[in-house]
């Protein structure tokens, strides 16, 4: 059989727009790359705030590594000291080093942010897949339930769940996870619906491939791209919501540093010592920004049609 090689001659304008699109994608790759670098930087700083792997192996308590001081060590006589060379972000109301607390505080935010997205993403994806693939009454029931959940503004939903569960990291992860699952469910549901109709899925069904296998092999990989994009963006949202909830007072217990709680503690001293609130706030801003950047960049790669 004669092999057809080479590409057929392309009309000129199409070539230009293709080049244009490739260049755009590359540029947005830059966004994604910058976002990724920032996220990794922030994560590493927080994770290696102290030397826990070495300490664990040596069987002792972890000592601060990237963070200059122990975040819980108080020095009441030097409370609310202004930023200086030794303490670039100043001291808080108990005389604790704010820079160290900001670095350690990233752990709470990242943990809550990432875990709640994992929880919510998993729940939501599962629901969306099942709803999209099963169709009929199951689909209806699930999607109506999603509609009801989405009727609650996210913060209100979070407040409701925390009012029932109480405060703390694990409860917040559950609360924010519940908050995020509807959006995941919706997107996955939509994607599942469209993929369900494609030829190869029809063919697979015709042959008699099991439902699970179809879901796992055909549908899931295709929605994966969307889910990853959403995961990144919603991590940003989750971190912001955690900050909100901590600021209201539903956050972690002392002395664990958490950015939202630190800002809250600092509001008493806005006139005297604004640095207590300013720096944790900046940390939130930069971290959320990093995840948003990453998400934006990923979205442009995964689905260039969406963003121009």
């Amino acid at each position, binding site marked *: 059989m004669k092999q057809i090689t080479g590409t057929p001659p392309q009309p000129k304008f199409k070539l230009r727009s293709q080049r244009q699109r490739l260049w755009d994608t590359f540029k947005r790759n830059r966004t994604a790359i910058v976002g990724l670098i920032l996220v990794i930087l922030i994560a590493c700083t927080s994770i290696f705030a102290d030397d826990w792997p070495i300490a664990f192996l040596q069987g002792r308590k972890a000592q601060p590594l990237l963070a200059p001081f122990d975040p819980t060590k108080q020095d009441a006589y030097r409370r609310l000291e202004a930023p200086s060379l030794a303490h670039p972000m100043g001291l808080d109301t108990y005389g604790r080093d704010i820079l160290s607390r900001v670095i350690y505080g990233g752990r709470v935010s990242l943990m809550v942010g990432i875990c709640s997205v994992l929880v919510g993403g998993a729940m939501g994806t599962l629901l969306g897949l099942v709803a999209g693939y099963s169709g009929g009454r199951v689909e209806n029931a699930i999607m109506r339930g999603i509609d009801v959940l989405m009727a609650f*503004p996210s913060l209100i939903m979070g*407040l409701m769940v925390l009012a029932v569960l109480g405060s703390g990291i694990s409860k917040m992860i559950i609360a924010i996870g519940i908050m995020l699952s509807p959006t995941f469910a919706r997107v996955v549901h939509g994607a599942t619906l469209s993929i369900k109709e494609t030829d190869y899925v029809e063919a697979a069904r015709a042959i008699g491939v099991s439902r699970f296998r179809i879901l796992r092999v055909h549908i899931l990989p295709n929605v994966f791209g969307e889910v990853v994009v959403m995961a990144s963006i919603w991590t940003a949202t989750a971190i912001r919501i955690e900050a909100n909830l901590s600021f209201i007072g539903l956050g972690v217990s002392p002395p664990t540093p958490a950015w939202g709680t630190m800002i809250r503690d600092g509001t008493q001293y806005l006139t005297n010592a604004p640095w207590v609130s300013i720096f944790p706030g900046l940390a939130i801003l930069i971290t959320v920004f990093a995840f948003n950047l990453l998400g934006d960049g990923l979205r442009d790669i995964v689905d260039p049609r969406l963003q121009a």
Partner: protein
Amino acid sequence: MLRYIVTRIALSIPILLAVFTLVFIVVRIIPGDPAEAALGDYASKQAVEALRERMGLNDPLIVQYLRFLGDLLRGDLGISMISGKPISEQVAHVLPYTLQLTFASILIGTLFGIPLGVFTATRRNTFIDYLGRIISLAGLSVPAFYFGILLILFFAIKIDLFPAVGGGDLKKPVENLKHLVLPALTLGLIMTTSVTRLTRSAMLNVLSEDYVRTARAKGLRERAVIIKHALRSAMVPIISIIGLWAASLIGDSVMTEVVFSRPGLGKMLVGAIMQRDYAALQSIMVIYAAFVVLINLVTDLIYGLVDPRISH
């Protein structure tokens, strides 16, 4: 068309019902006895029991549920456990402040956002566009309460320009307005970033359409092309989403009210949670959720009216 409207409205009702039910269940699961919380530390056991009877907490759940629904339908939001006053009174008192803030933020958001969106859309992929996108991403990333704190630090403390606190007397419009500026700026500027992004992408979609190219080909001035043709059709998705923005900003508006100590539904909600005022908590959550359902309904209806695909 009519069928679409009716169907859509009919769909909202079970959703509303489900929402109310969910709120009812959640409030009943919250640990702690509402009667005890209401009476405080010094109440005797008899007083607590008496209050439980009066609040109907000893009736079977079904009865409580039906009574709850019945009250809601009549517009009776119940009695606050802390102040002993009808919640609808309190709500009526703070609602104007919340509405003011919402309206002002939407105004600022659209007033700044749409032109900025158009601007960056027309200067696509230039440095300005890039800068604009970074700024709007930053705006999306900043928590509303932190932004509010920064504004307080600068405008109310460093420069004594605007009050940092409260909502001002509704009967004194100038004072009221001064109290509105900083909170509205906080929410409005954050909203601007979302509006800019949406306008930008809507404009870009429209700008690549055929009829725009036709208009250009006809030799119309660029400005006319943009404003008269592109923007007008881009406005359709934008306007229909304004309500959704208000709904999505509810979380931020609650935080803004808290930071500025500004009377409003959001501050009332946080207060109710902190003081364990379950009755108020229940009613305010119902109000918020009902508001969101309503906005969604209205948005869908507008879409239906405007989008030719649906109104066949």
